[in-house]
């Protein structure tokens, strides 16, 4: 049978039984000593078992009220006879029965409710994925069991998570308990006809206050219940702290998995880039070697005119320089990857002359590209390694030439800057997409969809950046796809 019909049945049956027993006793010629009086025990005990101390006391009181008009007149008439004494004893027994049995029932129900609440707290928190979810579940469970408004506040690092309330106002009962760690009972927090009791207790994990549990109710919140709530607060605190730590652990695990996946993807990319680099570098090395091999064979096997010998020697010299530059780049890259700075031999360098030399060499190598040079008249000497500086300029201007269509101008500027000289190389090439711009200085990186003819190992700009940094300078790249790219290198002047 469901609880509500049982309650209704008891509410009807107990008064009816009491009235019926009173009728029997009243009709019995033995008066207060009637055996039927013992039957009062049944409805009183039933009320005590069903409704606890309140029901037991009320039923006993009702039985006493009904029995009194039968007992007292006899006492008034005949004094304290054995019959009236039996009647008085029956009244006392009923009073004791209703109160004691009802009290025991109430205590037993309270203990049962406490244990059920603890189990409910554990199951509510156990399956929660996040701390917010655990809080919401826990609040729902507690609101249902405590028959009132419930709010939970939990500290999570610097944040305060709230379930069951909008915000935590300074000076509020919950804020006070959170600050002091002491439970607070407010007898009335209402302006309505019924008082509203408020009890706020700290949630404690080990010795730390991790939050608060607030209960509001238009009904009694007695000392016994408040003590039970304080004990519950300790359990809820531990459960929520465990949920918080579990959620944090899950979050860390997710973050770690993400980082591992990202690192794995990056390693795979680097691996692919290195494979591509080996292929490209082999080709880059083979080209000058093939040239050297071919021209040296010609010099060895054929008799050539002196002018032809000189021309071949120049070509071989150029290829040897190219080979040396590639080898230098590889060595520098190797040092960079080991975390070492490139080896530099700085001295005072005349920028104007250096720019002119580099541009002259590149003009000869790429006659279809007009390269304009603009140098300020009062340029200071740079404190730099001449070879490194030449490689920086060669790389930047070489790239500008390589990635520009034939006929498009490349402009090289040397300007006086605040603490030294700014070297600017501008082209009118296809430009670099915005997403690729932050990575163009990474070793082995090549912009996706780069000009197929513009071969390279993807190490030039990485070396340039390392060389500039080793000089205490900066490099900045701006690019607009379809318009062109501008590289600005700033290097310190001779102190």
């Amino acid at each position, binding site marked *: 049978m469901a609880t509500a019909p049982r309650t209704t049945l008891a509410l009807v049956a107990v008064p009816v039984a009491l009235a019926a027993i009173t009728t029997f006793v009243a009709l019995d010629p033995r008066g207060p000593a009637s055996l039927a009086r013992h039957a009062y025990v049944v409805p009183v005990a039933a009320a005590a078992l069903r409704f606890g101390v309140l029901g037991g006391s009320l039923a006993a009181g009702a039985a006493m*009220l009904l029995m*009194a*008009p039968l007992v*007292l*007149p006899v006492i*008034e008439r005949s004094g304290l006879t054995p019959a009236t004494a039996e009647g008085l004893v029956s009244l006392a027994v009923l009073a004791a029965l209703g109160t004691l049995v009802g009290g025991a029932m109430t205590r037993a129900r309270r203990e049962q409710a406490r244990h059920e609440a603890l189990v409910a707290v554990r199951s509510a928190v156990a399956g929660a994925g996040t701390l917010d979810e655990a809080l919401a579940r826990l609040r729902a469970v507690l609101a249902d069991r405590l028959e009132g*408004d419930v*709010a939970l*506040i939990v500290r999570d690092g610097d944040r305060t998570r*709230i379930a*069951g*309330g*909008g*915000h*935590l*106002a300074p*000076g*509020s*009962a*919950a*804020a*006070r308990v959170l600050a002091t760690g002491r439970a*607070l009972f*407010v*007898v*009335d*927090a209402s302006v*309505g*006809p*019924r*008082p*509203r009791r*408020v009890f*706020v207790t700290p949630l404690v994990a080990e010795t730390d206050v991790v939050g608060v549990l*607030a209960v*509001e109710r238009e009904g*009694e919140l*007695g000392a016994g219940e408040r003590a039970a709530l304080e004990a519950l607060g300790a359990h809820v605190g531990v459960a929520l702290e465990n949920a918080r730590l579990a959620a944090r652990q899950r979050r860390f695990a997710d973050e770690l998995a993400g980082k591992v996946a990202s690192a794995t993807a990056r390693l795979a990319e680097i691996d692919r880039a290195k494979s591509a680099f080996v292929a490209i570098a082999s080709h880059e090395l083979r080209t000058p070697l093939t040239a050297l091999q071919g021209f040296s064979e010609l010099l060895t096997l054929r008799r050539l005119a002196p002018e032809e010998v000189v021309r071949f020697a120049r070509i071989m010299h150029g290829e040897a320089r190219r080979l040396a530059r590639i080898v230098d780049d590889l060595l520098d890259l190797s040092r960079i990857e080991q975390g070492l700075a490139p080896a530099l031999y700085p001295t005072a360098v005349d920028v104007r002359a250096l720019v002119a030399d580099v541009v002259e060499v590149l003009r000869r190598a790429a006659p279809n590209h007009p390269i304009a040079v603009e140098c300020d008249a009062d340029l200071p000497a740079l404190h730099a390694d001449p070879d490194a500086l030449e490689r920086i300029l060669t790389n930047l201007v070489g790239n500008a030439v390589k990635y520009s269509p034939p006929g498009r101008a490349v402009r090289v500027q040397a300007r006086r800057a605040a603490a030294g000289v700014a070297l600017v190389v501008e082209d009118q090439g296809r430009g670099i997409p915005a997403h690729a711009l932050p990575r163009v200085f990474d070793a082995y990186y090549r912009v996706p969809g780069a000009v197929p003819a513009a071969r390279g190992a993807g190490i030039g700009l990485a070396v340039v950046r390392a060389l500039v940094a080793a000089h205490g300078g900066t490099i900045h790249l701006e690019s607009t796809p379809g318009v062109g790219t501008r590289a600005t290198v700033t290097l310190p002047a001779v102190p």
Partner: protein
Amino acid sequence: MWALEQPCRERPAPLLADTPATLLAALAGALAVTAALVAQGVLPRAALDVAGVAAGHGALLATALAWATGGRAWPGLVAVALLTLAAVAARGHPLGLVAYAAPPLWLARVAARGHLAALGFVGGVRARHVAAGAAFGALLGGHLLVSASRTLRVAIGGRPLAELLGALAYDAGANVIAAECFFRGALFGRAQRRWSFAAATAVSTAAYVLRYLADPLLPGSVAFVVGAVFYLALLGAVNCWLLRWSGSLVPGLTGALVFFAAWRLLDAR
């Protein structure tokens, strides 16, 4: 939620805050002067009855109204004036009993404006709550009639009709309404906002019982005193619960009126 969003209040105001001390002192003074004048034969005995009704019930009603309206004295003055008029009219003419309708009607008017919500005069009283109050009053009154008639051999319904109607009018217009307004609406209402329900009920009921034990109209025999303590304590405690349960003073008021009607049926002289 209050515990999170509202600043935590300091301790509530003292239990007896807003008591109209000047008015109470004036009522006590008037009663004393009247008693002295009656003793010297300057005023008739009826004048002391009128002063007793006005001062006794007026003090309770004025205090309850002052507590409910934040210390205002004028509602109490009006109540005292109406009670005085009713007592004078009831003694002046048989139909003067009708004047006892004035205090409850005036209170109903004030309550309709929402000024007496603190006493439990709120709108939307449920019929089942009122029925529960009436049923309890009838049960207790019936028990009183059975016990008194069987135990003390007190006659039932022996009073003349005019006297009975006068007593019922007095209960409805002065006695019950003043007692319920003060002991339940005001005193219990305040006490339960400071202490637990049990403690508030104990304070309110003890004061209620003491008030009737001090009433000169209560028969002086031990049996009546014990009976008064028993029944009034039960009535007071249950009316406290009725107020708490229903949120309204009306169910308890109904129960008390029914109980006192039963009491008036006894010829306890």
